[in-house]
């Protein structure tokens, strides 16, 4: 297609108009573009939280002394625990199995007697190991709580408490330790991945399934420009969704936006280029809407959620999974997207990621045009 050829431009415009008409005709597209970002932003902003909350914990005081009572009272006031008192571990065991309690603390008989004077008796903790994360946090918080309680009582207990070395942690970009700051940019990535791969996986497969693909290919438009013009409306929808997400993130959840709109635009465009191409390739390859959605979920949505590094650290995954993440486009989106909110424009970080995403887009785009050409031949 030559850009000087007015007829070709009109044909291209006609394809875009047809695609727009299809978008507006179907309320489900609107639902995906507007409702999905709102729902996801809400869930990642308000429901999914890795922040610490009060863990329901049973406590068994076998010592019944002044100090053990004080420790129980101290833990009851601690915001990390929601304490229930009971007589024995056996009494609490069914609750731990049912999941109504996540841990049982036991203060042993002789606890007070051992403090400061002889070798102290340790506090026992039994956790519900099936909830690995909660168990880990419970253990860490009980350690912390016990240590600060001992320090508070130090004068009376005659325990030397001055530590030799302490650490003084600071968290840059997120001094209030809000997990939202980590999760909300990731949610934007998921929204874009869904619009990109799921929606586009459906559109081309539908043309094949209904047999309208041949008609489309009969247009005098070249295949590359046909593909580009078919994608254009979905690219704009993806950008619109991103804007909704950013608005909710900044005004609804108070996330800072320290980078520039230009950087955000480039990052989202690069990612959309990759996922739109991916979706189209899936649908051109499967030619069936059901199989397309399954592939789109498997290769688009789920990897963006689980392998992109926004929920689970990539470096901690098994090596072979780490290698696989290199072919997940969302992996290259999350670091720049988190940074454009929390840090600012870090071009040395942005540029390589943007280039890789555009390379993904270019690769998928070439494969799609080739796949379509093969259909005709």
């Amino acid at each position: 297609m030559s850009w000087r050829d007015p007829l070709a431009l009109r044909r291209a415009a006609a394809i875009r108009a047809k695609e727009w008409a299809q978008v507006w005709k179907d309320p489900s597209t609107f639902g995906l573009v507007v409702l999905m970002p709102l729902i996801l932003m809400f869930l990642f902003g308000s429901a999914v939280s890795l922040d610490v909350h009060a863990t329901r914990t049973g406590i068994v005081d076998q010592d019944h002394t002044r100090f053990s009572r004080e420790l129980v009272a101290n833990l009851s006031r601690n915001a990390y625990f929601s304490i229930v008192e009971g007589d024995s571990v056996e009494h609490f065991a069914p609750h731990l199995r049912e999941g109504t309690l996540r841990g049982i603390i036991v203060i042993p008989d002789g606890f007070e007697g051992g403090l400061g004077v002889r070798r102290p008796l340790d506090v026992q903790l039994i956790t519900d190991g099936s909830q690995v994360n909660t168990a880990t946090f419970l253990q860490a918080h009980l350690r912390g709580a016990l240590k600060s309680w001992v320090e508070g009582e130090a004068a009376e207990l005659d325990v030397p408490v001055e530590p030799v070395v302490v650490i003084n942690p600071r968290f840059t970009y997120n001094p209030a330790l809000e997990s939202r700051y980590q999760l909300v940019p990731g949610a934007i990535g998921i929204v874009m991945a869904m619009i990109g791969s799921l929606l586009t996986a459906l559109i081309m497969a539908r043309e094949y399934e209904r047999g309208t693909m041949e008609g489309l290919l009969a247009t005098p438009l070249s295949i590359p420009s046909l593909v580009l013009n078919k994608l254009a409306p979905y690219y704009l929808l993806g950008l619109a969704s991103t804007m909704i997400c950013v608005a909710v993130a900044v005004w609804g959840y108070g996330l800072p936006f320290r980078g520039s709109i230009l950087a955000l635009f480039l990052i989202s465009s690069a990612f959309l280029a990759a996922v739109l191409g991916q979706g189209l390739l899936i649908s051109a390859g499967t030619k069936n809407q059901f199989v397309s959605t399954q592939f789109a979920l498997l290769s688009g949505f789920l990897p963006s959620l689980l392998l992109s590094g926004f929920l689970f650290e990539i470096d901690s995954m098994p090596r072979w999974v780490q290698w696989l993440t290199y072919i997940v486009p969302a992996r290259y989106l999350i670091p720049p997207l988190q940074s454009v909110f929390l840090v600012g424009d870090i071009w040395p970080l942005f540029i390589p990621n943007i280039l890789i995403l555009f390379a993904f887009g270019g690769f998928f785009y070439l494969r799609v045009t080739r796949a379509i050409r093969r259909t005709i031949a």
Partner: protein
Amino acid sequence: MMSGWLRRVAAMAGKELKVVLLDRRVLTTLVISPIVQLILFGFATTLEVRNIDLGVVNRDTGVVSEQFLAALGGSRNIRKLAFYPSEAALGRAIERREVLGGVILPPDLSQVVAREETGEIGVLLDGRRINAAQIVTGYIGEIALDLGKDLRPRKAHPEPEVIARHWYNPNLGYRWFTLPGMITLITTVIVLSVSVQALAREREFGTFDELMALPLRPWEILLGKTVPALCVGLFNATLYVIVIPLVSDVPFHGSFALMVLAIAAFSLAITGIGLSISSVAQNQQQAFLGGFLVIVPMMLLSGYASPVDGMPGWLQAVSRVDPLSHMLIVSHGIFLKDVTVWEVLAHVWPMAAVGLTTLALATVLLARRSE
């Protein structure tokens, strides 16, 4: 001696099964895709933090920094230490995500400790990855504590400590949580995908009117339509229950029969939700996207991604009618805890209730459509 309705439903179910089973690609997708997901995502999703790269700004030349760095470098969670000349250089490395964070050892650290005072080590971490950052802070804190005991053994605190035992999962293996949990997520995706297109596909291909012209009542049609989705769910989930103990160290303590019962109730609930959406959708695209709008929130509220206890109260209430949250509890319970029959049934009935309610809803919607 089959009664009339049973024969009609069976015929409908037979036709539906054929539609799914005769398409080779559909069948392959239904079996291969869930297995890939189970293995890939089951092994990938861990909230443990390992293989971390940390930066070091060392201005202390004494014994304390030497011992601290040796302990830090030797930690099994830390992969590499990178040295930086200044705090600003460390800040830039964090900014570009070369390291997750770094430790800053002040010039007088060893002297302060030698004077029997408390030395302070600065730790700077990337707040963009706040969850990993907090966990790593915990690791560094423990190393500092151990170092203190090494440096002043005579002052080793005679303080009470916490001795933890983890029931049901003694080594706190993360896969013991993720693999039984993934069954729930993957079964949801596959069952919903099959059920949500059941009626929408007929509508898109124009066979919906023929379906309505059949001598079947709406509920008989729907009952027939539940069969493929239910079979797919039962087949896949049961397969995982068998595969998981074989490919991993996750035990299976509970009753297989109870697990299958729970899976059936769960698949029924998801099928009901899918058919309700399908009965109002005009085409497959609407059905899939509509289904997605429903299952993504259900997944996120189930307690897999983050504990239900950490959610606001009203969302916890919503989570109690989410079949995924019940199935998640049952799955962890049967795999790891050997829960009692009654404890399982307490979660099976809410799932069955959701299934029956949504199937009734789908029938009403379908009946209204066909008038």
